[in-house]
């Protein structure tokens, strides 16, 4: 049996107010990106229904309710 090698755990940044604010900002951007794929009908993409129609098949296969 080959010996299992576990990498030493990496040090994660300490939880600070600044980190929490950055994480909250990032989460809002990520939510917007997920919203663009899953639900947007032009309000966010500013492309009318183009992006919505383009990503139609992905939405169905990612399990998002659609029409």
């Amino acid at each position, binding site marked *: 049996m080959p*010996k299992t*090698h*576990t*990498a*030493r*755990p*990496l*040090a*994660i*940044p300490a*939880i600070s107010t600044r*980190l*929490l604010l*950055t*994480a909250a900002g*990032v*989460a809002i*951007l*990520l*939510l917007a*990106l*997920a919203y*663009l*794929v*899953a*639900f947007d009908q032009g309000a966010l993409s500013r492309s*009318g*229904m*183009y992006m919505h*129609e*383009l*990503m*139609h*098949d*992905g*939405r*169905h*296969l*990612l*399990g*998002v*309710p*659609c*029409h």
Partner: protein
Amino acid sequence: MPLKLSFGRLLIAGLLAGLIAGLLAGTFAYVAGEPRIDAAIAIEEQNTLAHGEAGGSEELVGRDTQKNVGLILATSLYGIAMGGFLATAYTLLRRRLRTGSDTRAAIGLAAAALTGIVLVPFFKYPPNPPAVGDPATINQRTLSYLAVLVLGLVAIWAGVLAARTQTHEWRRATAGLTGFLIVVTIAYALLPTTNEVPGTFPAALLWKFRIASLGTQTILWTVLGLAFAGLLNRLATSSARQTPATAEPATT
């Protein structure tokens, strides 16, 4: 002291893992899912013609573009977003995950997400192909879907809390699963039931579409967890090399 990682570097690892996961999930979806969507659209068009509605309206995006560009774009962007969430959750929760292994922590979080936001929603609101679903209820179905996603994550959280009340390993597993299932059962009972599959829709096609959808999402989260763990491992290896004085002796 191992290298202290910034949130930025972890986030980039998550986004990159998400892109890889999205591309692979998209490839699977193209092979396993697109034939089902084509078949469902053919049924949809037949229905439209049979009802004498104004069919053949000008399409904004052609089928070929939807299949060849749109699908991969959708799964990639979705994968990137989920990768970002995984990296953010990892940064905020790593200290609370009681394992010394970053690999286990990363894959454990991805498995929790797969359970909470894919499997729990799947059995309450199984995904539907085109030609299934009443457009009049889309807002209500979207809200129910979002609710079941959130409740799936709450169920995971409840399971972890319940497991942590016990010390014996077998009791931990039993308490954790029980806590999880109690929340899922309550959520399933409270959320409205949707059944809009027309009686004439072929059962085999519906089944194959749903399996393709489940496969797409399972691949997305599995690859995401593995790729994120792999990238963390790379960061750990390179940080050990950058600080040779404190690096562990090579094990090879």
